[in-house]
């Protein structure tokens, strides 16, 4: 890495000015997501918990082999979360009617991602294709993105000493850029996962709910949550029963710190004037000046 003077100055200006502009991830207040962004719709009523998606994800991303094979159903007895070795996991929940329901977890690829607005080196990018991708080459490993993510998705390589990275689903970005679909979507035998333009997926979800009102809860999780996500869910049981927080609200997360960041320039402008004023008023200055004067006299002698 070369640090040029120009770069340094750029940084200094960015730091001071940074905050002057307080430019969160997607600064536009009315940003509604990229119009042509892709997304994925998970229909929980179709999932049978076969974990084919986990296996496909593992292969597509070259992740380490799992402790227990992917067809071992005993894995489902314990709640799991995404980890450095698994970008997606399927969990089993009681459906409240004596049966079970499964939900696949992975990065939800928010329209205005909390992780991106948390990152101090812009390691995260919300691409126009909809994927939120992570750049391990500039990441410091501060893990603030993990604190910020409302879904608790990013995982970290705690046992990697030399180049620990954040690990999370990238929506198989390389595949979708070439017109493909994510590996998990391709692998699903039940058509639980539908990949497509986000706007089209919302229409599909609405249609399914309208056609089978007795089968679905009348809500698309992710349509508006935290400002909308690319990965969305429809379900036959209330979302909190399958571990999706119903209280996240519709506010995009970058909004949450915007107020603070916009107060920063006020402090930068007002404080010097105010404190300088106190200094002048305090009479401290006169004495200092007098002291300087007498010191000069002494020097002359």
């Amino acid at each position, binding site marked *: 890495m070369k640090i040029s003077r120009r770069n340094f100055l750029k940084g200094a200006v960015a730091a001071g000015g940074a905050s002057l502009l307080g430019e969160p991830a997607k600064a536009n207040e009315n940003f509604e997501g990229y119009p042509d962004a892709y997304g994925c719709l998970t229909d929980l009523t179709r999932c049978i918990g076969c974990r084919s998606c986990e296996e496909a994800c593992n292969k597509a991303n070259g992740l380490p082999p799992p402790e227990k094979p992917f067809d071992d159903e005993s894995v489902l007895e314990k709640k799991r979360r995404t980890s450095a070795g698994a970008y997606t996991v399927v969990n089993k929940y009681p459906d409240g009617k004596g049966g079970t329901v499964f939900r696949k977890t992975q990065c939800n690829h928010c329209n205005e991602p909390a992780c991106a607005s948390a990152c101090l080196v812009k390691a995260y990018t919300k691409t126009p294709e909809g994927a939120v991708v992570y750049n391990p080459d*500039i990441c410091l490993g501060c893990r603030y993105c993990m604190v910020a993510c409302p879904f608790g998705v990013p995982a970290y390589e705690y*046992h990697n000493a030399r180049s620990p990275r954040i690990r999370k689903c990238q929506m198989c970005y390389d595949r979708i850029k070439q017109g493909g679909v994510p590996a998990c979507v391709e692998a699903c035998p039940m058509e639980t996962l539908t990949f497509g333009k986000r706007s089209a997926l919302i229409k599909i979800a609405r249609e399914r709910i309208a056609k089978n009102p007795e089968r679905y809860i009348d809500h698309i999780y992710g349509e508006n949550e935290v400002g909308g996500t690319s990965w969305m869910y429809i379900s036959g049981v209330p979302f909190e029963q399958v571990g999706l927080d119903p209280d996240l609200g519709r506010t995009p997360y970058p909004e949450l710190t915007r107020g603070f960041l916009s107060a920063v320039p006020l402090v930068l402008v007002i404080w010097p004037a105010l404190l300088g004023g106190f200094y002048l008023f*305090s009479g401290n200055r006169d004495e200092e000046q007098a002291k300087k004067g007498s010191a000069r006299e002494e020097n002359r002698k």
Partner: protein
Amino acid sequence: MTQEIAKLNKYAPGTSWINEKIFMGLSLRSYLKELLTPFNIIAGMILLAGLPLIILRYVSGLGAVTAASDDQPFGLFLGWGLFSGVPMASTGFIMATAVYLFGLKKYKPLVRPAVLTGFIGYFFAVIFLLIDLGQPWRLPNPMFRSFGTGSVLFLVAWHVALYLSVQLLEFSPAIFEWLEARRLQRWAIGLTIGATIFGVILSTLHQSALGALFLLAPGKLHPLWYSPYLPVLFFVSAIFCGLSVIIIEAMVIYRFLPQRVAPENFKVIDNLTLGLGKAAAFTMLTYFCLKFVAVAHGDSWKYLGTSYGSLFLLEVFGFVLFPCFLFLSGVRKQNPALVRLAALITVPGVVLNRLAISLFALNWKLSEREFFNPKEYMVAVTVITIEILAYRWVVNRMPVHRGGPATMAGH
């Protein structure tokens, strides 16, 4: 060269610059003998146990020494080292503002100790960061390579770096005095007012920014602690935390290193302690009201009956309102001992608050959580020990609690 020889000649025969400046005027042998104190032996044992763990962290990764996990990404290194360490190090900006900007001259004996405490506090906050960050050698990235301007953490990184430099500048007159570099000292003193104002701006912003970091965790941080007022709460609590640290620091140094303190300071320290206590009580009362407003604003009353509520009430009543009254009563009775006791309760209270926000009350909805890894605590204790040793090293050598030569007495 001739200058250096002239310099060397200033010292007593048989002693050199190193004897004078580093060994505190002793020969190497008697200096080493002096070092064999019970305190140093305990400190040495802590380092022997802890330093290998720090090496382990760099050899086997963070996971080898912390309880931090995917669910609980911030551990003790940040909870203690950064989130508690930075408010404890607010001492420098508080005393410099009081004395240089507000003209409260009588507190001058406490400015240098406060600035030194601040500098060392920030320096070791960065040390904790270097231990905690996955790739600490990439710390220059937010400075030079990639600017996450929409991130509160970006602001924190820049401000902590800038403020660390400003505090070194603010303390440099003492260093130059120690090195007998008069011209440099005069130059550094000339920058005092500018550095102080810049320091206050930076402190205001990053103390509050540490709170603003958690604005991004509304679903994770317990409602009793989550509040849009977090930045203000962090800033105000940093003030009384810093005031209390100054009281404690003076208490410890005046008690255990009296030979490093100017004799005339002993006459005024009780009075100054009372003054600091008054200021602390006032800011704590403000903080208590703000806490009340925050709970009311979030309408979080219903959580007060839960176990998190008990922790919250303990923090707000036991560690804020109670020491606040102790401060007030100490001031009214003109009893500095009471004020010192209040300070000793106040600082752990702020630490409790920061640990609650960065550890205990974060991810409160998750059922199984782990906070404790003995190795993590050992590393933290080791770094704190080095911090204390570094502080003592400086106080023993540089004019911190002593005024400088007559011409410098004004500063």
